[in-house]
């Protein structure tokens, strides 16, 4: 892929995560390069959603390190090399670099589509209202919803809500985007419009980490497919390698169930 650089933008190293006694992630490491589209697949309960939620610290981790743009996420390295938990304010600042799109959209229901998009640029980045509005209208046009600017989320279909959510995340001008099963809560007829927006985003060179069950999307858009199983990264490779010649027996078992 011509647009890929060697520079890693997201680095996760040995991520361990447990809910009580239950080990969800058992030491997962992943590097994502700038401009790369990585698709995480795996059976439900394999830890893929938990893993991307750990990247922007929506989940605490028990062990491991996350670096975004070369800077440690959530922890500060002191001069003696020890790690200390970072302040709420710093963590919020670090999250700006990573956009996230959720399975259940999570639009703000008390705001219109346009207000959803300008909220964080104004409140967090300190943009002027005029500048934020200009950006927001452009982004709404880009996701094909210029005519829905004044609609509340209750007046939009699932696919439209998800496209607004993507525009909302893009308004922060993130370095990378995380997608947590973005089409799983959608009616079948609106899945395509969301995948189309994601595909265009990938073509424009956005760095993306996508958790999805849409194998067609993975095959077509991914630079790399990563297979998780029971909290472990069991296999990764190009879509052809994974879908045509899976090496790991558990990958084969999983693919035979979903394809």
């Amino acid at each position, binding site marked *: 892929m011509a647009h890929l650089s060697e520079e890693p933008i997201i680095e996760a190293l040995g991520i361990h995560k447990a809910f009580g006694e239950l080990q969800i992630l058992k030491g997962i490491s992943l590097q994502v390069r700038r401009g790369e589209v990585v698709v995480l697949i795996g059976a439900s309960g394999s830890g893929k959603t938990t893993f991307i939620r750990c990247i922007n610290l929506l989940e605490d981790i028990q062990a491991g390190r996350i670096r975004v743009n070369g800077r440690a996420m959530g922890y500060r390295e002191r001069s003696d090399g020890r790690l200390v938990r970072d302040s709420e304010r710093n963590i919020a600042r670090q999250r700006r670099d990573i*956009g996230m799109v959720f399975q259940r959209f*999570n639009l703000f*229901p*008390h705001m219109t589509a346009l207000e959803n998009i300008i909220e964080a640029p104004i*409140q*967090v980045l300190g943009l002027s209202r005029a500048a934020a509005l200009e950006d927001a209208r452009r982004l709404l046009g880009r996701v094909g919803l210029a005519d829905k600017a004044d609609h509340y989320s209750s*007046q939009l279909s699932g696919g439209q809500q998800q496209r607004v959510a993507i525009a*909302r995340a893009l308004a922060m001008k993130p370095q990378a985007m995380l997608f947590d099963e973005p089409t799983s809560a959608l009616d079948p007829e609106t899945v395509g419009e969301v995948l189309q927006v994601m595909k265009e985003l990938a073509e424009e060179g956005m760095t993306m980490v996508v958790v999805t069950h849409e194998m067609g999307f993975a095959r077509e858009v991914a630079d790399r497919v990563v297979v998780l199983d029971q909290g472990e990264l069991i296999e990764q490779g190009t879509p052809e390698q994974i879908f045509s010649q899976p090496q790991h027996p558990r990958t084969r078992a999983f693919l035979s169930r979903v394809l």
Partner: protein
Amino acid sequence: MNFSWDIFWQYLLQPSDVYLYGLWLTCVISVLSMALGCALGLVAALMRLSSNPLLQYPVRFYVWLMRGTPLLVQIVFLYTALAAGGIFRFEDLDLGWFILPGNIQAAIIALGLNEGAYMAEIIRAGIGAVDKGQYEASRSLGMTFGKLMRRIVLPQAFRVIVPPIGNEFNVMLKNTTLVSVIGVQELLLSTQMVTSATFRVFELYLVVAIYFLLLTTLWGFFQRWLEIRFSQSEQHAPASSRMFGRQAMKLLRGR
């Protein structure tokens, strides 16, 4: 029956200054106590939602104490018992252009403290009703706790808590009668004072009851207006039109 319509109409329609002062005091004490209660309730609710036990347990104790003792006892305790015990005495406060008597201060604080405990529970429930995904979306956009509370969570919680807050204020209007025991001359004590001079007990208590009905009814209209206003952005049709549809509603209205 010992009932004089003349006296009834006279006090209802041409209330004496004593009465008007009582009405004014009832309203002022209600509003100030409610404001104090809302502020305390918000702080207490946020503390209660914190995972830090040092913040959580004082609030639990406060709510337990305020809800477990009679309001009347709290009022007397704050004003009379604390002074008798030599712990704290409410002194008249000279604010330059008028003097705020000690017992009115005690009344507002006692009612506000009591209200705060109930408001804490209401606000906590309202905040709890906001979907967890809203926090995650706000966080992922880089908002700090303060911003996400102020801009995202509280506006949504507010919509849920407006109806119960309205009910609380209705109760507050009536609860102000309790502070008559510490000599605050609100509507009830004003009535008592007038009856002790005129002995027209039946007529005057009927008038005071009508005054309270009037206050709570006026408040009820305002409350309805508030609820409509705060549900507007949701763009949900009101229950009646969801049930009957727009055409049926037109027929029912006779047009």
